[in-house]
C-alpha cells in the first residue's frame, strides 16, 4: 500500500544541514513508517544494517533524517490505521525486484547481465551479492546494448539468461530484441518503468512504457509481454517467463514499474516455493550422423523447431539475423526465395498464437453484475482492489478486470467479459491511457472513461474513488490547478528560486485572472513572522507562474 503526501524535504531536514540528494528517500522512509503505524525504534536498527558498511556517521545521519521524516508526518498527518498483528508466522517483506531476482535463480537462471539504471538496479545488486551462493554469473556491461546481446548469446548457448533495465536502457535494447525473435533465442528481459519521457522523473513511478514494449524493434516477430501485479506474482511471472522463453524460443519481456519493483510488501509465509516447474521446451540432445541434416528452423505446425545447443555433434548450424530457411541458410542474399520467406515468417509468428493457450485467462474479480468495472494492468491491481472495496462501502457496486498478459492477448475472453460489463473505467498511471488503447487495438473494445495519474506519485485508492465518483456524476475531474496544487507550486517556486525564508500565505482565486485565464493569487510571507514579502500569480488552466512581484527584494535572481 502506498500514499502520496507533500514532503517538503528541505524544510524537514533543514536542521540537519545540507544533505546528499539521495537522502530524500530516507526522509520518505521515515514518514512512511509513521503512516504504516510502526514505531520508529523498530526500524532504526534496519537502517543501521543497511548503511553499516558506510560507517557510523552515515548510519547516524540516516537515522536522524528518517526520524525527521517520521516526526514531520506524525505532526502533520494521521496514520493509515494498519493493524500489525505480529503473529508467530514470520512473513517475508520483499520488493518486486527482489521477488524477480529470487524467481530467476529459482527457475535456474545462470546468467544475469545489466547496466545500472533506476529502478532496475536493485536486481543487479541482489544478483551480484548472491551470485556465489546461487551459482549465477552476473555481468555488469558497458551499456544496455551489450547487456541484451550478451544475454541473447548466453541464452542461445543454452543457459537461462536474463537482463534488466528501465525505459531508456530498454530503448537501446530494442534492436537486439528483434534479433532474439529472429534467431529464436530464449531470453528474459525485465524493464522497470519509471516517470518518463526520456530521463524524466527517475525516482517516480509511471506505467507509460507499454507502447515501447509493443513497438520494440522493427518488423513482425514473436515476443511475449507480461506485467506482474505484486511481489508474489513477480516471482511466479519470472519462473513462467523462463519456461515460455525456452518452450517457444523467443524473448519474454517482464514489464514492472518503480512502485512494484522498489516498494517492499509483506507476502504470505509460503507464497514462494523452491520446487517450481521447469520446462525447457523441445531440445535435441543427440543426432545420429545417419539422421540427415539437422534443421534448426524446421517448419512445424506449432512453429516450434526442436533446438540443439552449440557443441552437440552433427547439428552444426548458424543462427542468422538475416532471414533464412529451415537449415539457417540465408534467403536474404543470393538464395532469395519469396515462398520460403513467407513460410518462415508464418512459422515464427504462429508460435505466439500457440503460447497464448498457455496463458491464464483474465478474470473478473468482485461482484458479477457490478455497476462499475475498473480495468487495469500491472502494479495497480492491489490499489484498484482497495478502491473497489471503498466504492462498495460507499454504495457503488464495483468490480475489477486486471490484465497480466499483454502480448499475446486474450482478445476473445476480454471482449466476452467486457461486453457484459455495465460501465468500464480504465485506471492507469500515464497520460495517454496506453492500456486502454492497447485493449482497443487487441479486442476492439473501447473504454471511454479513464482515471489517469501522471504526476509521478503512485495511484491511490482515494484518488481512484474520487475519479470514479466524478465520472459517475457526469462531471469528470478537470485538469485545472486546484488550490492544493497552487500551494505546492508556490512551494516549488520558493524553494527553487527564493531560498527558504518564505512560504505561501493567503490564496485567492481570481476568475478574471490575467485576461487569458483565471488565476490563483498567492501571498508569499516569511516563515517566521508571516510578513508579506510579495505575490505570486499562477494560471488556473495552464499552471503557468505568471509573475513574482516582490514587495522588497528577497531573491538573488532579482540582482542577477
Amino acid at each position, binding site marked *: 500500500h502506498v500514499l502520496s503526501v507533500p514532503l517538503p524535504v528541505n524544510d524537514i531536514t533543514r536542521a540537519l544541514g545540507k544533505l546528499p540528494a539521495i537522502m530524500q528517500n530516507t526522509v520518505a522512509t521515515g514518514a512512511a513508517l509513521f503512516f504504516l503505524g510502526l514505531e520508529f525504534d523498530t526500524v532504526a536498527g534496519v537502517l543501521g544494517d543497511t548503511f553499516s558498511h558506510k560507517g557510523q556517521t552515515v548510519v547516524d545521519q540516516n537515522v536522524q533524517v528518517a526520524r525527521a521524516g517520521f516526526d514531520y508526518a506524525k505532526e502533520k498527518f494521521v496514520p493509515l490505521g494498519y493493524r500489525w498483528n505480529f503473529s508467530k508466522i514470520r*512473513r*517475508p*517483506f*520483499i520488493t518486486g525486484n*527482489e521477488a524477480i531476482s*529470487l524467481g530467476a*535463480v*529459482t*527457475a*535456474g537462471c*545462470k*546468467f544475469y*547481465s545489466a547496466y545500472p539504471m533506476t529502478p532496475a538496479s536493485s536486481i543487479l545488486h541482489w544478483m551480484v551479492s*548472491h*551470485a*556465489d*551462493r546461487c*551459482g549465477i*554469473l552476473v*555481468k555488469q*556491461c*558497458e*551499456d544496455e*546494448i*551489450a547487456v541484451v*546481446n*550478451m544475454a*541473447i*548469446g*548466453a*541464452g*542461445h*548457448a*543454452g*543457459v*537461462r*539468461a536474463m537482463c534488466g533495465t528501465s525505459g531508456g536502457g530498454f530503448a537501446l535494447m530494442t534492436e*537486439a530484441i528483434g*534479433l532474439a525473435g529472429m534467431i529464436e533465442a530464449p531470453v528474459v528481459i525485465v524493464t522497470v518503468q519509471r516517470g518518463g519521457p526520456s530521463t524524466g522523473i527517475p525516482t517516480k513511478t509511471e506505467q507509460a512504457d507499454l507502447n515501447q514494449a509493443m513497438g520494440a524493434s522493427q518488423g513482425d516477430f514473436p515476443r511475449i509481454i507480461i506485467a506482474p501485479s505484486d511481489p508474489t506474482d513477480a516471482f511466479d511471472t519470472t519462473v513462467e517467463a523462463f519456461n515460455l522463453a525456452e518452450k517457444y524460443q523467443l524473448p519474454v519481456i517482464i514489464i514492472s514499474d518503480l512502485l512494484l519493483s522498489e516498494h517492499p510488501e509483506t507476502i504470505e509465509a509460503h507464497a514462494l516455493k*523452491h*520446487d*517450481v516447474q*521447469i520446462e*525447457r521446451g523441445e531440445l535435441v540432445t543427440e543426432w545420429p550422423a545417419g539422421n540427415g541434416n539437422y534443421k534448426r528452423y524446421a517448419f512445424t505446425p506449432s512453429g516450434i523447431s526442436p533446438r540443439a*545447443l*552449440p*557443441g*552437440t*555433434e*552433427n*547439428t*552444426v548450424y*548458424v*543462427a*542468422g*539475423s*538475416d532471414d533464412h530457411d529451415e537449415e539457417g541458410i*540465408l534467403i536474404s*542474399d*543470393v538464395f532469395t526465395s519469396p515462398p520460403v520467406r513467407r513460410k518462415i515468417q508464418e512459422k515464427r509468428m504462429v508460435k505466439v498464437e500457440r503460447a497464448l493457450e498457455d496463458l491464464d485467462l483474465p478474470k473478473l474479480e468482485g461482484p458479477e453484475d457490478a455497476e462499475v468495472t475498473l480495468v487495469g494492468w500491472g502494479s495497480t491491481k492491489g490499489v484498484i482492489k482497495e478502491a473497489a472495496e471503498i466504492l462498495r462501502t460507499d454504495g457503488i457496486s464495483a468490480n475489477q478486470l486486471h490484465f497480466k498478459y499483454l502480448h499475446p492477448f486474450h482478445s476473445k475472453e476480454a471482449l466476452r467479459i467486457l461486453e457484459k460489463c455495465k460501465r468500464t473505467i480504465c485506471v492507469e498511471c500515464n497520460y495517454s491511457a496506453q492500456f486502454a488503447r492497447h485493449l482497443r487495438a487487441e479486442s476492439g473494445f473501447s473504454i471511454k472513461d479513464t482515471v489517469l495519474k501522471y504526476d509521478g506519485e503512485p495511484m491511490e485508492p482515494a484518488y481512484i474513488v474520487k475519479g470514479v465518483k466524478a465520472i459517475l456524476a457526469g462531471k469528470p475531474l478537470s485538469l485545472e490547478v486546484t488550490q492544493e496544487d497552487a500551494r505546492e507550486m508556490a512551494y516549488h517556486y520558493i524553494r527553487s528560486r527564493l531560498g527558504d525564508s518564505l512560504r505561501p500565505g493567503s490564496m485567492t482565486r481570481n476568475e478574471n485572472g490575467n485576461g487569458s485565464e483565471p488565476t490563483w493569487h498567492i501571498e508569499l510571507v516569511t516563515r517566521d513572522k508571516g510578513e508579506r514579502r510579495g505575490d505570486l500569480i499562477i494560471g488556473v488552466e495552464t499552471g503557468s507562474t505568471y509573475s513574482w512581484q516582490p514587495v522588497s527584494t528577497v531573491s538573488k535572481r532579482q540582482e542577477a
Partner: protein
Amino acid sequence: MATVLELPIASYESVVDPDWCPGCGDFGVLKSLKMAAGKLGIKPKDLFVVSGIGCSSNLPGFIHAYGVHSLHGRAVAVASGVKLANHDLHVVITGGDGDGYGIGIGHFIHAMRRNLDLTYIVMNNQIYGLTTGQASPTTMKDVRTKSTPRGNVEHPINPIALALVSGATYISRAFSGEPNHMADVMAGAIAHRGFALVDVFSPCVTYNMINTYPWFKQRVYKLESETGYDVTDYDRAIDKAFEWGDRIPIGLFYKGDQAIYEDSEPALKKGPLVHQSLGMNQELFEDLIEEFV
C-alpha cells in the same frame, strides 16, 4: 594443448559457397581460418563463429561450424555471452572495420579490458563494402568514397594502438595476400588464452581502389623477420603500431599473459554454466527467504 590431431580443411566446408566478389580479400581470411582451426584440431562442433553485419560478416555462413550472424556492431557482445555460457567452445569473432571499429568500437574496447578468451578477426578493407562504398573508420585521410566525395577528413582509427592501450593480450595483423602467414597468426590467436585481435588487410576490390593488393604487397613486411623483435616489449609494440606508409608491419605485435576474465569468475569454477543443473536446492532457498523475514 598437448599433441593435437590436425583436421583437414574440408572438415569446415559449408554447404554454401561464398558470394563475395571475385578477388575479395575475405576469401583469403576464410581459407586461413579453416587452416588455423584445422591446425589446432578444433572440431566443427566446438568452433563457434560470431559475426555482425557486412560482407565480411557473412563469413559464418561459409564455414561449417556453429555460429551467430548477429547485428551490425554487436558480434563482440553476443560472443561474450556465448563464451561465458559455454567456455568449452572456441569462440571466434569475424567482422568488418565498420562493424568493429565504427558502430561496435565500444564493445571492442570493453571486451579487451575484460581480457575475455575471445579471438577477434577484423577484415579491415577500410571501406563499408556491403552498403556499397562509404568511408569507414579506417579509411585514410583524403580518400574519396561515396560518402566523402571531397576526400575523407577524419583521422583514421589505429586498431593496433587502441588494442595496446586497452588491455588486449594478443595483438596481431595479417594480410589476405599472405594466407599461410595469416593462418599461423590466427592459430596463435585462437590458441592464446585471452583477448586476441587479428586485424586483417582484406582488400575490397569493388569499392576501395586505393588500398589494393599491390598497394599492400609493396608495403607489408613481417615483424618476425625483424631481428630481435620481442613480442613482450610493449613500448616497441606501440612504436610499431604507428608505422604506416612505405613500410607496414604484419604479424604479432604484442603478446601478454595477464589473467583472463574466465579465471576470475567464481561461477565458472565448476565448469561451463551450460552444464550446471537448473533445480533450486531447498535449504538454499529457505536461507534466501530468511533474509526477507
